[in-house]
């Protein structure tokens, strides 16, 4: 008789909120722009056609670099003046494409994710040193105890992880004192050239804070950056049963509403998972339930926590049951003439996310097909190894380091926002 110790689940958190894109104090801008480190975005559009999609989403483009940089790169005056300090702090609202004639009365509440953004990859936030540069010029070094004891810069113990095993050093590159000749700057420079002179692999992008367009970066000679354009892939499928979200649209504070919202979230996650699987293996038929089951089985082996489901455990059997149950319990309808479209973007910065949000809003409020335009959703995933999640709050990695959000919008510009956070996060 085996005894399996039952440990409590590491509790991930999901925040549900609702608002409107045209509300007086728009929350969406704050949520999107204070979440700087994103690597994927997915758009799920039911009951639409490819022609409509292509018109709207063609404008989203961008690129980022992957480069091995020493930290002294961020300290060079050229980089600071040209990229970090330029554009100021949220100088203006993001400009939209004129054909939509949108009038968002937005006031930049936070530095609009502009300027230079960088995230080091390859090291886990709970095991190695991670370096990230926020749009507002804040260079964050999340380092191990060994590195911190050799580094020489003042920092605080991290909130997450074993006691005093991880330290966070924050350097404000936009401060007036970041000039050669000042003691603070010289000390940081000395440390980056002597005690922590190893090269980190960064995903780095320079974003114009007023237009949200990614710009080119000049790297010093010995660095060999690889420019990676923003990839967009499009998938469509017919015959997927789309749940009817009228129950969720009418917001109420009752438990029923919450439960329906959560159920839909699970459904959405599963649907995206199927599409994600389709993305990886091209020939998959999503109509047949049996195939769906096979796909789920296959993809379970390579589990990456893409799925934004509220529970941390990934139970195959429960997923089948849930999908079944969702199909039966949520009222759904489908029309075989229309397809569900799924777009997938890689390496998206927060500014691009904002543009994406506007585009989706534009799309859904266009009312091109008033009888068939149901709802639209887009999800943005943050890096699991990002040192911050939202609003400069510290973020860690236990079982997973998920920090992503999903907007589900309707034609009248109202939306429901799901923010998913892992166990170790200070934002929650």
């Amino acid at each position, binding site marked *: 008789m085996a005894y399996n110790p039952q440990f409590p689940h590491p509790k991930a958190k999901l925040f549900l909120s609702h608002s409107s894109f045209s509300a007086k104090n728009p929350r969406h801008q704050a949520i999107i722009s204070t979440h700087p480190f994103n690597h994927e975005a997915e758009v799920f559009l039911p009951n639409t056609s490819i022609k409509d999609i292509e018109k709207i989403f063609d404008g989203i483009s961008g690129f980022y670099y992957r480069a091995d940089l020493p930290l002294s790169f961020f300290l060079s005056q050229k980089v600071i003046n040209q990229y970090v300090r330029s554009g100021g702090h949220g100088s203006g609202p993001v400009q939209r494409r004129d054909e939509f004639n949108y009038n968002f009365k937005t006031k930049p509440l936070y530095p609009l994710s502009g300027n230079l953004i960088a995230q080091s990859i390859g090291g886990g936030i709970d095991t190695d040193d991670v370096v990230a540069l926020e749009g507002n010029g804040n260079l964050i070094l999340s380092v191990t105890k060994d590195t*911190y*004891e*050799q*580094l*020489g*810069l*003042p*920092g605080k113990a991290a909130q997450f992880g074993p006691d005093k095993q991880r330290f966070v050093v924050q350097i404000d590159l936009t401060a007036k004192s970041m000039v050669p000749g000042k003691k603070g700057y010289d000390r940081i420079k*000395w*440390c980056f050239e*002597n*005690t922590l002179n190893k090269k980190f692999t960064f995903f780095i992008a320079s974003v114009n804070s007023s237009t949200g367009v990614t710009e080119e970066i000049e790297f010093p000679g010995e660095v060999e950056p690889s420019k990676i354009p923003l990839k967009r892939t499009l998938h469509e499928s017919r015959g997927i049963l789309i749940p009817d979200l009228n129950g969720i649209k009418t917001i109420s504070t009752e438990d029923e509403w919450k439960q329906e919202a959560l159920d839909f979230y699970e459904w959405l996650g599963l649907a995206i998972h199927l599409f994600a699987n389709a993305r990886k293996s091209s020939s998959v038929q999503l109509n047949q339930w049996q195939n769906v089951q096979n796909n789920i089985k296959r993809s379970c082996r390579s589990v990456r926590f893409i799925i934004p489901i509220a529970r941390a455990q990934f139970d195959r059997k429960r997923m089948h049951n849930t999908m079944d149950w969702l199909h039966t319990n949520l009222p759904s309808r489908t029309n075989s003439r229309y397809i569900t479209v799924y777009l997938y973007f890689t390496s998206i910065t927060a500014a691009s996310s904002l543009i994406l949000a506007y585009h989706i809003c534009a799309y859904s409020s266009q009312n091109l097909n008033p009888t068939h335009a149901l709802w639209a959703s887009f999800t943005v995933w943050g890096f699991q190894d990002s040192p911050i999640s939202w609003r400069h709050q510290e973020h860690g990695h236990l079982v997973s380091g998920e920090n992503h959000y999903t907007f589900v919008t309707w034609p009248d510009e109202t939306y429901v926002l799901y923010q998913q956070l892992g166990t170790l996060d200070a934002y929650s």
Partner: protein
Amino acid sequence: MSTDQQDRNPRDLNLYAPLPDYVRHQQAHAASLSAVPLDPVTQTFVPGFVTAQVSSDYNARQVYNAKVKDKVLMLDNPAKESADKKERKQNRRGTRRMTAREKREKKVYEVPADCQDYALFIPLHNLWLQYVEELFGRQGNAITHAQKLVKADYHGAIMTVVRSKCHSYIGVTGIMVQETENLFRIVTEQNRIKAVPKAASVFSFKVRNEVYTIYGNHIRYRAAERAAKKFKAKPTIDL
């Protein structure tokens, strides 16, 4: 001993020079001073009396010379000096010791401001290098050298703080000028004396193209004590 400058001739500063004349004269004078006051009657009476009393088994003369001649027998304990008499005697002598508080106030053990000069201590560093050369000898590998260095004196070594729990000590480099129980005082190239605690710090210095690392937590002893100390392995080198 007198410490007048005029008495010191350069040739007499040789370590093996004979003692000066006044010392030899003082020796005779001191002997006469410490002589016990003797009554002339005792002087004549005692030898005869003792030798007569000794039994015939022993040589009377020998017994007298060994046990009685020039010896003093205390019949009672000498009077103990009272505390304030003692203090008065001390103060009269003028050799009053400084208390720890006075030492701290007068900064006896600190390097004075005009001596906080890196260039001034470079000869000390060279002296230390010679000392280490002698210590290591011609043979030996890094392990034996390290064992010798544990008990060695580090005054004059160019040390660097490599790791520390406190970030501001990391990177401090210079010639070590003072070692106390818990501190290294290091003069940096910017002509400043930095007092770096040994606790929670790791130091390193380079000798003969080899870099040696000292874990501060393990050498929190005075330099003199360290020379005689048996070091046991500590459970961790963690700071």
